[in-house]
């Protein structure tokens, strides 16, 4: 019973970590994998040391493992990135107001967002064309979408 309570307590602590790092479809699997990891490594838990770092280590290891297997199975990093974007912005290109909103971004952001979201290039292709790193493209894209979101909210489109 005490052990069950311990596992429940651990579950409550690790849920925010998993939610922060993984998309919804992977969260449940990762949570159960993490709990299994905690159970399997329980004999190494030293109560005199910091339990938080012990748990975090297991959870981050499981998160990395989930991401690794996700990328391996999908063989496409972009899918993960695109899925994690807000759906209202993903659908915004149907709206005629988009062109006006895009003009309010700076040239670099507009160009990259157009290529990624409207012209349908992959992140890797955009990186090649603009000679920027993939992570940089993702960051610019992410920031541009945040700006678009704010603009659209200001104009009462969302």
């Amino acid at each position: 019973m005490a052990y069950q309570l311990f596992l429940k307590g651990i579950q409550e602590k690790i849920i925010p970590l998993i939610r922060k790092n993984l998309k919804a479809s992977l969260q449940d699997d990762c949570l159960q994998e993490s709990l299994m990891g905690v159970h399997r490594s329980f004999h190494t838990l030293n109560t005199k040391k910091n339990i938080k770092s012990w748990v975090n280590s297991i959870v981050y290891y499981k998160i990395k493992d989930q991401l690794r297997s996700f990328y391996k199975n999908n063989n496409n990093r972009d899918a993960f990135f695109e899925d994690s974007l807000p759906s209202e912005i993903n659908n915004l290109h149907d709206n005629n107001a988009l062109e006006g909103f895009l003009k309010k971004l700076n040239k670099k952001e507009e160009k990259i967002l157009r290529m990624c979201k409207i012209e349908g290039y992959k992140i890797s292709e955009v990186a090649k064309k603009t000679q920027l790193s993939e992570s940089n493209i993702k960051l610019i894209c992410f920031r541009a979408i945040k700006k678009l979101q704010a603009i659209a909210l200001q104009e009462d489109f969302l």
Partner: protein
Amino acid sequence: MKNEEFIQKLSQEPRKNKIESSRKRFFKWFLSLIFCFLAGFSFLGIREEWRIVFKDPQLLMQNILLILIVISASFSALVLSSPGSERKKSLKFFVLTPVFLWGVLLLFSFHQSPIAGNGYGCLQDILLFSTIPAILLFLVVKKGATILRSFSGFLILIASTSAGAWALQFTCHNDGFAHLLVWHFIPVATLGALGSFLGKKILRKI
């Protein structure tokens, strides 16, 4: 399966007994290492001029570095068998520094005796001295829950082969630095690299 059910199921499963502290496990392994050395020396014999290992300053330095590698690598592998400890960056520093210094020492002393000669016997002796300690250390580490499996495998083989290289000083008659580099250091480094592959295969995922 819902998380509640999953937790209930997990709590009904049997749990392993608590493992001993890294220090206790280290001393037990070290004791078995001494027994392995005694058995090896009684089988191979010790060279007559073995005292030179403690008299010549460069050989003495090598001697000290090898002991440091054995202690730091084996202890680190045992510490790493508990989750959370892999966050200590100093662990890598403690192990890799003496290995690096040993390589540098041999490389800079290379010109003193540049002929490596034949050393297949040394390779055999390293394996003879280090196989059982490596198996024992793998078994001890396997009892824990290792996250950095590859690095732990590297540490295990570096520790046991360095122990083999330390014992080899008392059986190998060639103290030339080219020989030490080619037939003592390179096999240890190569087996260490092999250890990172074995670590992934032998040590279970948590």
